[in-house]
């Protein structure tokens, strides 16, 4: 409720300020989506193998003057076979002030930390929208403010986030559910209204870029505890958001055509302390032969030292490798193909993700993605997705 009130207030603020805006750009898209899936694993899940959805995203930038602008990124989806057919979120809604070295942003923030491709252990500020993307690449906006100071070749950012939002989890009719059990109300260790804070310092030293960060607040990814309702005798899972302190390190080294990457965290909670690590290589071949095709190869390894019994089933990338190939044809249609493989070394499970996108007319795009899970029956993080292999085809109108 409070989130809705804040969003409405901020949208109203935008409408007021918009009248003063002297330069504004709108971007947006409308898409249709069709799924072709196996029968679902859980009885509650929708058993329509072919589903459709209509979604729209709207991006707005309004410049009030040279130093002040407004950014809005809103999203809405109608998906009849989803547990909640009507979904929307204000992913970003910020009033921004820029001076030569100073930046101030306030509103609903969307932040991105990290250098790795498949998963960024350091990226802790925004909760994920795991209904939109079970891999966590799509995030929910987080209310708060950011104060930044630009250095010659780096920046210092500090955040204050007045309250926490939950991760959006698939349940009921949704596919990509993490458990057969329903979720009960989320619990935040120090209360949802506890202020979170963070600071990040990033710096470039010729071919090396690094960043150090510190976050103090609720985790954005919950662990789950079973609850037995004494009256109905029904077991539910309660998402618990622990209060954490996390120190993070990001490192990127440009060596010829190779990028060497590292992310590491040390996280401390009341119950456990653990480290997480991701290392990666990225090699780009900008032109294959005389064609304009550009090829990029990725290889990454992830380790997470947290207690899997406690955090199960949702801890991703505990001992995993990731390989990716991206082929950009650099043609008039902007055609791009991408093949990604994530393999869990503990359970020998694999997740294949193939993506393709091309322009079919000036403003029309077609996008396809194929998810394939293999040997996931004994993988606690992926076994509930065993029947969720799917092909999705999106037709997108950009405006």
């Amino acid at each position, binding site marked *: 409720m409070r989130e809705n009130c804040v969003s409405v207030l901020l949208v109203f603020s935008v409408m007021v300020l918009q009248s003063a805006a002297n330069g504004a*750009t709108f*971007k947006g*898209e409308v898409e249709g989506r069709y799924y072709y899936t196996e029968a679902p694993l859980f009885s509650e899940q929708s058993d329509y193998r072919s589903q459709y959805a209509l979604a729209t995203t709207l*991006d707005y*930038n309004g*410049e009030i003057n*040279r130093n002040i602008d407004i950014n809005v990124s809103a999203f809405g989806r109608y998906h009849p076979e989803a547990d909640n057919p009507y979904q929307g979120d204000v992913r970003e809604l910020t009033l*921004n002030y*820029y001076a*030569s*070295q100073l*930046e101030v942003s306030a509103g609903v923030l*969307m*932040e*991105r930390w990290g*250098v790795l491709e498949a998963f960024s252990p350091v990226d802790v500020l925004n909760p994920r929208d795991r209904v939109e993307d079970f891999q966590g*690449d799509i995030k929910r906006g987080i209310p708060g403010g950011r104060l930044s100071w*630009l*250095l*010659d*070749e*780096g*920046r210092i950012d500090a955040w204050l986030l007045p309250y926490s939002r939950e991760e959006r989890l698939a349940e009921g009719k949704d596919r990509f559910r993490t458990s057969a059990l329903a979720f009960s109300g989320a619990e935040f260790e120090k209360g949802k209204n506890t202020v979170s804070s963070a600071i990040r310092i*990033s710096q*470039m030293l010729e071919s090396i*870029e690094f960043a150090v960060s510190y976050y103090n607040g609720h985790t954005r990814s919950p662990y789950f505890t079973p609850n037995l309702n004494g009256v109905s005798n029904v077991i539910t899972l309660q998402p618990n958001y622990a209060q954490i302190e996390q120190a993070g390190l990001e490192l*990127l080294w*440009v*060596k*010829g*055509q*190779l*990028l060497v990457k590292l992310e590491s965290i040390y996280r401390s909670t009341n119950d456990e302390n653990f480290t997480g690590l991701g290392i990666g290589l*990225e*090699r*780009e*071949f*900008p*032109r294959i032969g*005389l064609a*304009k095709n*550009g090829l990029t190869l990725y290889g990454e390894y992830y380790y997470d030292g947290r207690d899997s019994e406690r955090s199960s089933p949702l801890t991703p990338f505990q001992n995993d490798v990731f390989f990716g190939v991206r082929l950009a044809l*650099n*043609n*008039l*249609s*902007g055609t791009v193909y991408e093949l990604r493989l994530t393999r869990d070394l503990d359970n020998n499970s694999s997740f294949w993700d193939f993506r393709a996108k091309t*322009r079919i007319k*000036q*403003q029309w*795009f077609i996008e396809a993605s194929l998810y394939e899970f293999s040997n996931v029956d004994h993988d606690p993080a992926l076994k509930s997705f065993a029947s969720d292999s799917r092909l999705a085809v999106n037709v997108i109108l*950009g*405006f």
Partner: protein
Amino acid sequence: MKKCSILFGAGLLATFSVFAEVDRGLEIAKETQHRDSGFGNYAVLGTMTLEGPGGFTSERKFNMYTIEVPGDGDKRLVNFLKPRDLAGMVSLTYSHGLKPDDQWLYMPALRRTKRFAARDKSGSFAGSELSFEDVGTWEVKKYTYKYIKDELLDGKPTFVVENTPAYPYSSYKMIREWVDQEIYHPLRLLYHDVNGRPLKEMRFYDYEKFADKYWRPMKMVMTNLRTGAVSTIIWSDYQFGADFTESDLNPSALRRWSK
């Protein structure tokens, strides 16, 4: 013995001649740089039309901001406005003469500034026939120069100069350049691949003078001589002494530019 002396003399003359051609080529390059130095910064709007062999076209629109860095390569930021899938994308390049450039790309959908390995600059610029090497800023030390001859091009007297990349990772063996003798700017570039075969041709049209000193083309056409594909850039709204500074072209501030 006399024959040897004649041969020696001819060889000496040929050597002097080569040195003279090299010196003259370098003089032309230095004069070009001298005439174009001191601009500080400029901004310009580019509209690029890509034409495939089948007649299919696609348009990109972008703002380009260049800042002069005395003693090092220039800094250049490109802010894409169209089409929809590129809008909001911002690229920033720090040129470094013979060292690999530094290059970053801001991707608005991910809110992520990504560093790129830019040693190999042969990659396509926004799907066009231009590579990142072609759109990079020019520095005298990036090439060695050899004057070939004077030649009329479209009725204009030009110097024909062969530019050989000094950058070891260049995707070209040589670029033959036709330099306008009046304004000391290129009218034509003929790019030769690493095997020495002609690969692409760039033509420059409709030069105009800005800030009473700096000549800039209003139109550039790059043709791929192998495929026939053409990329045309129409430049407009040149602004010299524009309202941005070196600190604005900072990889940490790319999100500001994304619209």
